[in-house]
């Protein structure tokens, strides 16, 4: 299947500038600079590109909001913080296709009228950071970055910043805080970064994968892009599969591809021939789906209708023989540890949920404890500065609904039913 980001399959090794140019690299930039930024925004909007960081906000709209913000200067941040457990798509893009990411970022900067790009890259990604630094040097030499880009009077500076290794550090406003030299604490919104962002100026924060889609769209047009995916969700998405399948890795698929294709054709099925007990289409924060939802199309609307979400494409499969209580406890412990702690509601919610799940695991509290989960989640809904407070809810509530026997067994015997 032809891809947009991986037209010849998942790339092996770093693509050099000459290799990138030989397949049309930086032609989109030349073409875009001949036209106005507004036209570029229109192409991206018409293509229907949406953010690939998890929230799925329309990219063209975000660009337009930033472009229309009156303050100057404006900044573009490439968000490669990528600290979702199991996600590796941004690392692969930065490491192997640095010029694809870079050209998308330069185009984005041109569209919004930014004077500087900040590349925010997970501090643990040594090879990706090296790769992108080399690409920056190559692009500067070739006249794609710096002063008077391609002789069109467009000046653009660029800087690489290391992203701390914690989950919240990938949240847009936490990213801004880190680049400003502060700790990774999300800001209260509004104001949103598109109007008041980095150093108080209009700032566009786009995920690595989102920007990687821009040059192909700008070069080949919105209609071409629309041929991939579904009517509501055009394009492709990179999905990450991990050790629960025979062939872990990243796979680019058009939106709307059945989940079964990803698991069986791409991933080679479950490891050791195990059967699926539950599917988590957007680990670790989506609702579990039962195994019979394996034919659900991989697009945000279909996943929502099935009762879950698509997030940033980390698909986890829970094999039969796994206790869901143990699984949600691990997920809850993750969010408790990753809560930055600045919002009291989030601190209370995440720590209480974990403590309650530990009690369930140990067979304490009886049935009344199960009734408290929904109350805590409902009480804290919409509170907090960022979305982390809403993340433990879908896995916990779906687990309670889909696998009540696992909870009941723990509560009555104090033991895992799957052991």
């Amino acid at each position, binding site marked *: 299947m032809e891809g947009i980001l991986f037209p010849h399959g998942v790339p092996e090794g770093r693509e050099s500038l000459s290799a990138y140019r030989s397949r049309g690299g930086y032609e989109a930039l030349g073409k875009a600079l001949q036209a106005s930024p507004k036209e570029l925004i229109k192409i991206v909007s018409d293509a229907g590109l949406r953010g690939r960081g998890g929230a799925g906000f329309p990219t063209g709209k975000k660009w337009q909001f930033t472009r229309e913000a009156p303050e100057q200067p404006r900044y573009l941040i490439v968000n490669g913080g990528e600290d979702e457990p199991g996600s590796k798509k941004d690392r692969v893009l930065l490491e192997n296709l640095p010029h694809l990411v870079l050209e998308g970022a330069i185009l984005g900067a041109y569209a919004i009228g930014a004077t500087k790009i900040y590349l925010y890259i997970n501090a643990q990604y040594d090879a990706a950071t090296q790769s992108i630094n080399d690409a920056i040097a190559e692009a500067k030499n070739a006249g794609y970055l710096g002063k008077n880009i391609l002789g069109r009077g467009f000046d653009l500076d660029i800087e690489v910043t290391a992203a701390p290794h914690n989950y919240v550090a990938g949240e847009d406003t936490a990213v801004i805080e880190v680049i400003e030299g502060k700790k990774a604490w999300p800001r209260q919104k509004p104001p949103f970064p598109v109007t008041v962002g980095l150093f108080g100026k209009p700032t566009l924060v786009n995920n690595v994968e989102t920007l990687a889609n821009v040059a192909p769209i700008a070069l080949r047009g919105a209609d071409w892009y629309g041929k991939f995916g579904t009517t509501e969700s055009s394009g492709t998405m990179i999905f990450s599969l991990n050790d629960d399948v025979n062939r872990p890795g990243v796979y680019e698929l058009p939106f709307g591809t059945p989940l079964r294709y990803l698991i069986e054709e791409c991933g080679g099925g479950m490891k050791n021939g195990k059967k699926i007990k539950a599917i988590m289409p957007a680990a670790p924060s989506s609702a579990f789906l039962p195994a019979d939802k394996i034919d659900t199309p991989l697009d945000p609307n279909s996943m929502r209708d099935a009762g879950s979400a698509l997030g940033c494409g980390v698909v986890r499969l829970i094999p039969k023989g796994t206790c869901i209580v143990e699984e949600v406890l691990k997920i809850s412990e993750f969010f408790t540890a990753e809560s930055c702690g600045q919002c*009291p*509601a989030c*601190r*209370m*919610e995440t*720590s*209480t949920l974990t*403590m*309650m799940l530990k*009690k369930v695991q140990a067979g*304490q*509290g009886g049935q*009344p*404890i199960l*009734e*408290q989960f929904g*109350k*805590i989640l409902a*009480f*804290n809904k919409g509170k907090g500065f960022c979305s982390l407070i809403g993340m433990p809810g879908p896995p916990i509530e779906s687990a309670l609904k889909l696998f009540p026997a696992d909870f009941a067994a723990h509560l009555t015997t104090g033991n895992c039913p799957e052991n």
Partner: protein
Amino acid sequence: MTELQKRIDDKGLTDVEVKSYMCFGACQEGPNIVLYPEKNWYAKVKVEDLDEITEHLAGGPHVQRLDTIDSSLKELIYQLLDTGVM
């Protein structure tokens, strides 16, 4: 906590235990003292307030001015305490 314990000891209240607890989600209103199982919640407590709180524990009046926490949060936390979750 040390100051509160001292006052409780001085008053001879042997059936009161002072202990720190997990987050109740009201740290912005802290320091918080929750009297349980009688269910009273005092927020933004200062050392100067401790004598009145100790009096309350000894059967004195409720300290109305420190009872400022949102009732829905109080209800949630009391329920969690009642079910033995916390």
